[in-house]
């Protein structure tokens, strides 16, 4: 489902246990990952399915500094690899939230981080009237997705891929999903 041009929501079926199996997490480390509030999943690319997003590492450092929730990476210690991709977009990756309770707090840290990263390069180039702004001068972009359980125990993946300015909408959706009971209805309400 497309909420707008930048946000998509779809059901997510893969479980954290399946991910841990795929990532070959040693049995002794599984409890720690499964017990975290937030778990980062790989984003993958062609033949490197187990690679993580480029900006994840820095986000982890930021989130651990803030220390508001327990965040883990679904990856064995020596298996962490990253994908460095093309365009100048900030890619945070995919995050699995164990419970809806974490939703709002996690969103607070994600949005703070994104603004903190984008702030230095604001103010942006002000578009010149009558000419198309080249893409490399456009406002900074960001992408990430959040997998969140709804009250029925199903998981939804909400993906954002667009300009930094538009992320607030994502916050509204997360709030609705995590406070509500019956996600479908609530997603429908915020749809423009």
């Amino acid at each position, binding site marked *: 489902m497309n909420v707008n041009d930048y946000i998509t929501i779809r059901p997510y079926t893969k479980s954290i246990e399946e991910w841990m199996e795929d990532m070959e997490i040693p049995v002794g480390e599984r409890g720690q990952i499964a017990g975290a509030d937030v778990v980062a999943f790989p984003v993958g*690319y*062609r*033949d*490197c399915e187990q*690679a993580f997003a480029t900006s994840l*590492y*820095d986000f*982890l*450092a*930021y989130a*651990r500094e803030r220390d508001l929730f327990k965040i883990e*990476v679904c*990856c064995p*210690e020596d298996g*962490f*690899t*990253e*994908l*460095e*991709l*093309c*365009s*100048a*977009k900030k890619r945070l990756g995919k995050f699995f939230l164990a419970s809806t309770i974490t939703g709002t707090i996690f969103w607070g840290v994600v949005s703070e981080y994104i603004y903190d*990263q984008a*702030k*230095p*390069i604001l*103010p*942006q*180039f002000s578009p*010149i*009237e*009558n*000419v198309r*702004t*080249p*893409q*490399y*001068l*456009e406002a900074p*972009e960001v992408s990430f997705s959040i997998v969140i359980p709804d009250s029925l125990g199903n998981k939804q993946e909400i993906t954002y891929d667009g300009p930094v300015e538009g992320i607030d909408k994502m916050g509204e959706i997360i709030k609705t999903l995590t406070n509500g009971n019956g996600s479908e209805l609530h997603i429908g309400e915020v749809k423009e």
Partner: protein
Amino acid sequence: MEMDLNYILAKLRSDGYDYDATLGSIKSEKQAAQDAGDELYANQLWAAETIIKIHQQFVKTFELLKAGRYYEAWCEAEQVEINIQFLASNSQEGWGNVKDIYSRVRQLQSLYPYKFFASYVMHVKKEKCSICGKERSIHNFCGHRIGKVYNGELCCNIVTDAELKGIDIVENPVHKYSVLFPSDAEGRHDYYDYTLVEGLMKYWSKPFQFWKYVVRKVFKQKAEFPGLTNESYCPCGSGKSYSECCALNAEGIKHWIYTFMVEPID
């Protein structure tokens, strides 16, 4: 006694300023601060050093433009941009010193004809921290964040093991220098049309002189282009044939007039 950084920074825009000399003295001052473990002062010196480099690179950009070396100027401008971003994320005060340079660089970039860039896809397997040399690990953070300054040095990633996965063509690249150029046995060719940059350089005569530009859209009539046929490339520059482009437009042929405004210098 500490150096008077404000005094130094106030002079950076004077004609013929010797950036290298100042960078040299800042460097030894920074070394002394680092050795003494004065992190706050070392970081201030890093900011001053970066501000000086930004000015120096901006002057270099201007000189390359004056010499008609447009691609090199583009690359130098990218260095200015990168340094400004590092500065801004570490020193709000420092950013204030170069804000106007940043907006000049962005305006300059907007006049370039480049549109497509080569961009690699890299699978990074191992990297280490430039500050402490520790390998990046998901469980044991060394505590240094990329792009932040520690004891007067910028923290970067040193990639020690990576595999190239592909090259993509993008319009918003990580590296602006990766402009696509056609090449053959004789090497690379620069067929880009730099008319707008050339236009600017007719009026921009000193590096720190303020300038801006505006664009006005007008319509021209077919009669103003002798020899124009339906099969010709449309004079509007769309790359389409005239019959498929502005011939379909009742108002006429699209035309843009760029007006450069520069601050008078005495």
